[in-house]
């Protein structure tokens, strides 16, 4: 090893030592390490990169369920299942359908323009899941309300106008 290379290595080692010494004194190590792990590992409990509301779109939707008479059912009050959880389940079933539509070569235009027919299987799955996960003491009351129907309400903004469209996607 030449003398110059040896000197360079000493300089690098010195710098590394300086960085290490600085890190050892740095009082916010936990903040940096936890932040880095959360951002790198993303959704791996207890780590998370907390992606909620990280992007806004001009379109969103919510879901609800109606009974045999077409009257809305208070899901949480009756079954201890929140509509947001039902939506999460529905969306998880919708995602593969969305992928298939995208792969089929059709122009992808987002959830709002996905045909109702394409959404029916996901909505039926969501209704089945809902019935299966109903709390035991509410089963009789739920049975009296069947067959259930699944509704998706699209919301979007155009200029200063907000539009809501209620679609009955599927029933039992």
């Amino acid at each position, binding site marked *: 090893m030449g003398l110059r290379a040896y000197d360079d290595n000493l300089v690098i080692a010195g710098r590394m030592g300086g960085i290490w010494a600085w890190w050892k004194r740095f009082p*916010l190590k936990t903040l940096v390490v936890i932040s880095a792990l959360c951002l790198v590992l993303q959704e791996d409990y207890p780590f998370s990169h*907390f992606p909620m509301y990280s992007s806004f779109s001009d379109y969103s939707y919510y879901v609800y369920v109606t009974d045999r008479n077409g009257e*809305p059912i*208070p*899901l949480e009050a009756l079954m201890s299942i*929140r509509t947001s959880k039902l939506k999460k389940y529905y969306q998880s079933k919708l995602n593969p359908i969305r992928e298939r539509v995208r792969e089929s070569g059709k122009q992808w235009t987002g959830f709002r323009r996905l045909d109702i027919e394409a959404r029916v299987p996901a909505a039926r799955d969501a209704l089945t899941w809902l019935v299966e996960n109903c709390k035991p003491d509410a089963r009789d009351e739920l049975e009296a309300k069947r067959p259930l129907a699944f509704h998706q309400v699209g919301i979007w*903004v155009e200029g200063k106008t*907000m539009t809501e469209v209620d679609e009955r996607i599927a029933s039992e």
Partner: protein
Amino acid sequence: MNEEEVKRFQPIGFAGWELYLMRFLFAIVVYFSISTVVHEVAQPEPVGLARVIDFTFMANEEVMNWCRWGVAAALLFYVSGRWVGLALPVVCFFVLGYGALKNSQAELAGHSMQIVGLVLLAQTVCYLWNAVRNRLGNVPASAQTRLEAHRAAAWVAMQTAVATYVVTAISKLYLSELSWLRNAKYFPVQLVKAQKSEYYNTLEAPVAGDGIMDQMVANITGWFMESPMICRTFLGTGLVLELAAFLALWGRKSALAYGVMLVVFHLTISRVMSLTFDLNIYVLLIFLVNLPYWGGRLFVRR
């Protein structure tokens, strides 16, 4: 000026009684964050510890009861400040397992338990690290070394709580490719979605009261639709608050100020969007706001 106020971004010299109260309150939060009944009987998409251990045994009510007893016993040691290096890993294992099971439900995973899991993990590593360092350095166990270990654990808990907010802000900027604030004009869509979803949970229309908050909640969607600038200012304030949350670690006063601001921030979002942040609020109140200390100071001055 108090000496500890001069040192910025340095571990706070908490008194023994403050640290005891912090551990006591956090132990209550940890214990009650675990449900008595677990509905998850499968781990369709395992995360965290659930990748290597099947935690569905927690769905067995009897087993879960024993687990909760075990956690309660270990938490008693944690609160007492003795044998923490042995007791806290037990609590950490069960809480991380429970959280992993809850978050292994594919799309149904949530984000309510993360802050408790992260603080527990950070404190466990901190206590173990202290124990190993003291053992290797032949430092005899004493009241002073225990106090130092508890102070270090409180300091890592504060940093961990703050980190979750900084990460949230960075994710917003990164995932939106820096267009988060520009697209914030679409936030009213989320507001309406949240309010209508909440309505279909109970079919009870929100009762409009006369308070400022009630009026704000009732009118906020209209204001934001009318003026995207108001919407951006409102959301931008929250983003800056999250991004600069590390300033809470400046000292005691900033921890109090930032803790209160973040709690108000959560309460506002809870009210407007019908979301709950109970565990976040409790952790902030315990480790940042630290009301017993400020209450004590006020009492002593009088």
